């Protein structure tokens, strides 16, 4: 089984991101996911010059039960298609793909993707549930052993990487350190105190061997992305950003326990699909956005997408290579570790802003191709170009 790349290539550059927007990011005790998403949506409409009545596809996402029907009711629109996908942050890449498909097939002309997250205000801990959630990226089946939280699954995998390849937690610190440097240059970012290896190593563990700085933030905020046809996008306020490649590969076998293969058999298939569709390779990528619920995800993404050899991400990420000015800048906005925890949606926004040249002091020079990768049991990738 493999995707039909000939047919996928017909979809290349057949959908474009016209507008992006974010609400303020932080702690907003009087707000809720709908309000935050709608604030972001208004900013995205302003960004491209569209009106909300132009929206004929409405995709809504957020931790907890954020309803696309209720959102449409609040906005006073009856789109052709509405949807969400209740798999947490694993949904972001797939939903971007569904939006591109809706537009490329002609079923919709303009799809709005709205994301609202009030996890800080709601006191969400991302752990401690005793209900089993099949299909999620982590085990919820073994809570009676005290096993819980997506972070624990990543901690198991980090230990496997350390044990198998001799990599270390001090090497892994290069990921949060790079992203903190980027966040310092990003006005939207929440965490700005400089980070060092010593500070990382001395910090408390959440689920050992991962330290607190290896974990994403938990905060409130909203994000919106507007996808439309290339023809429509070219008539709008900002330069279009084209969806030029996309890939996906799921892993269901063994999904009740943390994935012990580090997705070696499955993630490369998502890479093959996206590079096959786009005609690009990882050597063409000017900036990389990686879903970073935990720092170790960057290593698995780099290795399984062939940016470096299996087992070598520890060495690969040293000496500033993944920092701005390095050979492969990763998460130039600061990512979930330092900017804001919007479950991959601000990664799409940063890709667009980099490709438009809007990033000021954190702008990647001559940025023409940006890739998004999310590892996991629903591995997904997007390749964007300007």
């Amino acid at each position, binding site marked *: 089984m493999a995707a039909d790349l000939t047919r996928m290539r017909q979809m290349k550059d057949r959908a474009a991101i016209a507008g992006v927007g974010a609400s303020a990011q932080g702690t907003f005790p009087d707000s809720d996911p709908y309000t935050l998403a709608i604030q972001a949506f208004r900013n995205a409409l302003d960004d491209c010059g569209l009106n909300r009545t132009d929206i004929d596809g409405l995709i809504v996402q957020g931790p907890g039960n954020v309803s696309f029907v209720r959102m449409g009711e609040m906005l006073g629109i009856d789109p052709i298609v509405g949807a969400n996908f209740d798999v947490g942050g694993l949904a972001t890449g797939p939903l971007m793909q569904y939006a591109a498909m809706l537009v490329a097939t002609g079923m919709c002309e303009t799809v709005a993707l709205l994301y609202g997250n009030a996890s800080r205000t709601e006191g969400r801990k991302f752990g401690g549930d005793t209900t089993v959630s099949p299909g999620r990226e982590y085990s919820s*089946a073994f809570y009676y052993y*005290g096993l819980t939280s997506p972070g624990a699954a990543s901690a*198991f995998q980090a230990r496997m990487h350390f044990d198998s390849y001799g990599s270390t937690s001090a090497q892994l610190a290069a990921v949060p350190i790079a992203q903190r440097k980027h966040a310092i240059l990003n006005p939207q970012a929440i965490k700005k105190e400089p980070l060092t290896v010593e500070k990382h190593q001395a910090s408390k563990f*959440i689920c050992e061997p991962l330290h607190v700085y290896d974990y994403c933030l938990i905060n409130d905020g909203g994000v919106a992305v507007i996808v439309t046809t290339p023809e429509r996008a070219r008539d709008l306020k900002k330069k279009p950003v084209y969806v030029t490649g996309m890939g996906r590969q799921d892993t269901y076998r063994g999904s009740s326990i943390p994935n*012990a293969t580090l997705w070696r058999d499955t993630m490369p298939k998502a890479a093959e699909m996206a590079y096959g569709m786009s005609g690009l390779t990882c050597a063409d990528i000017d900036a990389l956005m990686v879903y970073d619920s935990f720092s170790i995800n960057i290593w698995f993404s780099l290795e399984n997408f062939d940016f470096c050899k299996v087992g070598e991400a520890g060495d690969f990420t040293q000496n500033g290579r993944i920092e701005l000015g390095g050979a492969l800048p990763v998460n130039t906005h600061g990512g979930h570790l330092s900017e804001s925890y919007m479950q991959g949606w601000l990664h799409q926004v940063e890709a667009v802003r980099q490709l438009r040249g809007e990033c000021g002091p954190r702008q990647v020079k001559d940025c023409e191709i940006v890739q998004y990768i999310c590892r996991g049991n629903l591995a997904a990738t997007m390749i964007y170009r300007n």
Partner: protein
Amino acid sequence: MTEYRKPLPVVTPLERPFWDYARRHELRMQRCTACSRYRYPVSPVCANCDSDGYEWAQVSGRGRILSWVVFHRCYFPSFADEIPYNVAMIALDEGPVMVSNVLAPNDSLRGSMPVEVVFEDATPEISIPKFRPIDA
């Protein structure tokens, strides 16, 4: 027995025999009567050969630590007294990978460490399989 406060498994009809055997301190798993492959966690159908038939076969209860973590954050209030506690992935000699706690100091755990099952009687109905180190 003091009152058991930690979360207990919710036992589905398919898992009932697993827990009935566990109460007798026997570790048994579904084994396909067509291709001999183990099914764990439980399933009504063999993921390897699509057969329905299975038996509850006793396994050795021996295996090796594949990976382990130590919880320093308390997500379940009932585990508060045990922080920091370990959770390990254990590859049984027969193949299936279990999640469990290893009854040993956290800093003594190592990858590939040999372990064997022991049962913790949580309630009169539920005994939970756990593991302890053994000599190789």
